[in-house]
């Protein structure tokens, strides 16, 4: 219920959501939850994140800290947030707009049971794209060159 009035909710459109009395900011699935923090807020309340994390129990396998980068001078506050998340077993994800932050929550929900195929080694069966893929690993070879090479050497 911390999140009432968070404009981020406006941007969650691809998944259903509801308010509830929960410890994390968002419970995304059976085993995943998320805490939202904006860097601006963190600058004002440097201890906030730590206390919120401490409240979370170990019930969740995936604990996301969703960090909204909403200031210019990020290095120091981001460093602190990074350190806190890392040392307390949380996964840090950064978004540069409310849209982006909302999208992370949506995506994690939507992909909850999705296999990792799209980020694993894929075997694309189209010859040309494989050929291009291999040749472009060489620096200075671009797509046009690939076609030129392909048509000259067959």
């Amino acid at each position, binding site marked *: 219920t911390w999140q009432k009035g968070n404009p981020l909710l406006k941007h969650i459109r691809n998944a259903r959501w509801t308010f509830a009395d929960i410890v994390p900011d968002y419970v995304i699935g059976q085993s995943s939850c998320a805490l939202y923090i904006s860097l601006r807020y963190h600058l004002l309340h440097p201890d906030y994140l730590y206390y919120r994390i401490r409240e979370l129990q170990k019930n969740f396998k995936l604990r996301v800290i969703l960090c909204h980068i909403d200031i210019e001078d990020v290095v120091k506050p981001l460093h602190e947030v990074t350190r806190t998340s890392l040392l307390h077993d949380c996964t*840090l994800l950064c978004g540069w*707009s409310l*849209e982006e932050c909302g999208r*992370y929550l949506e995506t994690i929900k939507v992909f909850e049971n999705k296999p990792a195929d799209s980020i694993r080694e894929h075997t694309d069966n189209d010859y040309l794209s494989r050929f291009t893929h291999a040749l472009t690993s060489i620096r200075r070879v671009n797509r046009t060159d690939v076609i030129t090479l392909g048509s000259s050497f067959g």
Partner: protein
Amino acid sequence: GGGGGCFLILSAPDALKDQIRRRLVESQLLQVHDVASDVPAAHRRALYSSGEGAALFLTPRVLAADLLTAHLLPSRVQALLLLAAHRSSDTSADAFIARLLRQHRLLPVYAFSDRPHAMVAGFAKAERTMKSLYIRRLHLWPRFHVLAAADLERSPPEVVDVRVPMTHPMVGIQAAILDAMDACLKELRRTYKVDVEDLTIDKGLFKSFDEIVRRQLDPIWHTLGKKTKQLVADLRTLRKLLDYLGRYDAVTYLKYLDTLRVSEGVRSVWMLAESSHKIFELAKRRVYQIVRPDGTRVSIAKGTPTKKRKVTPSSSKKGKETENEDSAHNKDDAQKVNAEASYLLVEVLEEAPKWKVLRELLQEIAEEQRKGDGVVHEDENNECGIVLVACKDERSCLQLQECISRSPQQVMREEWEKYLLGKAELFGLHKKKKKRSQQPKGFGILDGEFPTGSNENENAGPVSISKLETNALLAAASGISNLTKEADAKEDSVPSCGKKGSVKGKGKRVPKKTLTKRQASKRKNRSTTENDSCQGTDVEASGKTDEQSDINVSKVSAEDAPAPASTPDNAEDLIDAKMLPPVQFYALDSDQHVLDIWKPSVIIVYHPDMTFVREIEVYKAENPSKKLRVYFLFYEESSEVQKFESSIRRENEAFESLIRQKSLMMIPVDQSGRCIGPTPANEPEPLLSQNSLTRKAGGRKPTGKDMQVIVDMREFMSSLPNVLHQKGIRIIPVTLEVGDYVLSPLICVERKSIADLYQSFASGRLYNQVETMIRYYKIPVLLIEFSQDKSFSFQSASEVGDDVSPTNIISKLSLLVLHFPRLRIVWSRSLHATADIFMSLKSNQDEPDENKAMRVGVPSEDGVVEDDVRAENYNTSAIEFLRRLPGVTDSNYRAVMDGCNSLAELALLPVERLAELMGSQKGARTLKEFLDAKCPSMIS
């Protein structure tokens, strides 16, 4: 000299290496060794410690690692020489090396640069570079320096500036390209994202233009729309087109445009503009024209379906505008009739105007040399008046060679036939596919198969024209392929090149390829050329054979060069060729310094280039007694002239700016290495010592602790090890099988720059890397490192889109964290931020153990502990290539590498052997099929 210890020479390009080696060997001052990155560590160590002074060429990556592992002791080093100072910065590897060395000893560092404009790119670049390399004095030697000028102008070469007018279509194309560029620039300005002042056509001619634009746009790249990004890419394409206009023959140019249309067609902005239409049209007109049967030309054309050579290229008519001259012009045009569709393909085959001029020049030179024969003989033997023709690239060299040894017409015709055959093959393939899917069509009916033509209506303007055109091209092509077959057949029966069917075909294309190779490995292998007389590499005045034979340059006399010809054209060529002086061709691209070797007395700069001009000046100054005449061939009023002139201006401006900067420079006088640098706390560490020793040394640093980080060898390509070292962390280079950095026994980091991140997500590699990291470490970390001068974000809010798209980086990251909830992600703004985060993450942890880290993930069946040599021993880009081949995976690529010496060898392995290496029949078959597959046509 003296003292002992070695001179370390970093980042020398091959050509420069050769030159330095030659001079050092001549003077017998020092031994020279090239320490390539694949020299085993033990061997390197031997070289470092080999008694008397030696000059060692090294790569920064290897040297940095060797210094850190104490394979090389700073005390063994006499001086450090950097040959590409313009590429240094405080985070670069050479600065790292300078620091590692200077920590121990105040040995001298010398840095050189021959790129004045690169030294002024960015704020106070020269000064910052000097500071990071511990250099106190800056010496500037501009061309306009009194001493430099005096030296170079004492006996200047005779310079002849030849202006060659371009043909009308060329002028037209150039104007159209400039129009298109201008339009792109205007469009770019309208985005208000770039500094207008820098965006001029003049600057747009140079490669550095891209850098200017990128530097301005990089920080906001993510906020740019697709269109702006495309504009930047388009400008690059257009610049290339402009460059190629003067460089390639008409047919090749058209071919390039064709491929461009296939690869860029849909996306690019300029392609749709009117001027681009003009470019394509004009480029086509330089090669062929399509004439309707009701046009004026028909009557003449119909009677003469035979092929003839066209002679007057320079007049370059554009069809309808020149109808009155048609009769005269047309007779010479080769023409074809296609009975089926009743239209005509008229070959134009415009020759590059410079070709003719070059021939004339050579004849002129030959004549003069004959007249002044006495003078020539007075000179030393070696100076028998070689003419050096300098072109931009190898290809132009070969083509010019052919132009001279044979005839320009022949060369054009060959290119044209290749072009047509290419077209035919393309459509042939395409047609086959179509036939299979649809009902078979009659032969020669290609309606609707032209890629852009969907309209079946014959009379519908442009569509039918393009159809006609395609048909005409194909008809011409089939004519040629028949001829080729005939020629082949004849060649089979009569094994000589003296056939009337010298109408090429196989016989001549093959030697061309071999020529390319030979050209590359030139110099000593030259004598082999003598045997295959048909290939005519060099042309020579027949009278001078004796004198020349003692140079290691052998030639083929002109008579043997072209196939004994039956046409009067060729007879003429023969006479011409006999009169030509000995000619050498030189590709500027090859970046070799040939002037000292060939000692030419005449240089024809076919493609004017600033750097080469400077080279000529130096050559002349070093050989003041030698007569030298230099011809510059410029296309009149072309971008070529403009580019050349502005490159001179650019050089001067750069030097003026450097002189100003030098007067304002603030280099600390007492720069002694110990007190300078970003971290004064960075005291020398005893690199000799093993862990135990350094541990004892703890407490000397303000951090109160001697931190160490284990770094994968491959990471020395990046600047992070350098920056970590700047912060006072001890770097231990080893070859890591898992991860890039090991911060503690628990923490292992895989580092990804943004480009790497996208790439490794796409290839699936990241998934594998994370998977193994999770298996072996308690705290596996993915470091996403942004670049300081680029924007800190993936995309703009507007690019996020309305729906979850599986290809978006957000989706990929989400999927990754869902599958690896234990993975920790570190987001870093910059290199320096990364270093700080590393230090803070380490602060409560034990120091990592290098021996343990090294063994992690190494397949145990190997038995042996990995030696650090291993990673260095392979060509990393070849590995990357290999990894991308289908069937090759993270688990089997090592075995594949061990099973063959090169990619070329891999391609020849039989399936069974592949299966053995890869441990899978299926994978082996996939790979084999891929390697053997024919490249599909561009249309697919």
